[in-house]
């Protein structure tokens, strides 16, 4: 599946692509963090991946959606889900960091 932006893409379509690209990066990082975290192995390493994932989620959420209609709805839904995961990942990060230091 290729998700490369088409050269003839309109400006509006670009904002959707940008959000999706941040999602992709965040998904990769947080998946890595989760794999380590769920494994109960070195939590300190999971912390690093959570931080990277959180940064990508924040960038994706900050993107202004410049399309309308169905495309807007889809992009908005994706951003809403990213907000949910941002909160949850941050909560998890706080917990891990606190446990790690004590």
């Amino acid at each position, binding site marked *: 599946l290729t998700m490369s932006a088409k050269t003839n893409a309109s400006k509006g379509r670009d904002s959707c692509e940008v959000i*999706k690209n941040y999602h992709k990066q965040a*998904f990769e990082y947080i998946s890595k963090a989760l794999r380590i975290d769920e494994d109960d192995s070195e939590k300190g390493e999971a912390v690093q991946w959570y931080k990277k994932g959180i940064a990508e989620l924040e960038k994706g959420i900050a993107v202004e959606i410049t399309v309308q209609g*169905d495309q807007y709805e889809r992009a908005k839904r994706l951003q809403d889900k990213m907000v*949910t*995961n941002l909160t*949850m990942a941050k909560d*998890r990060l706080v917990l891990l960091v606190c446990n790690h230091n004590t």
Partner: protein
Amino acid sequence: STTTLTTPQNQVESLMHELADEAGLDLNMELPQGQTGSLASTMASTEQDELSQRLSKLRDQVE
């Protein structure tokens, strides 16, 4: 799997075309622009849902 790795690419492709011919499909046919975008969005949403599920599972674990 190892089978996938050792099977020559051209064999895989010719088999895919054979199957597609039988089913009357055109493998070179592309989805309309809007549709690929919506497919990618749906996939992204599903992936975010997956993260939510795994994160909430960890949250609910007794520390």
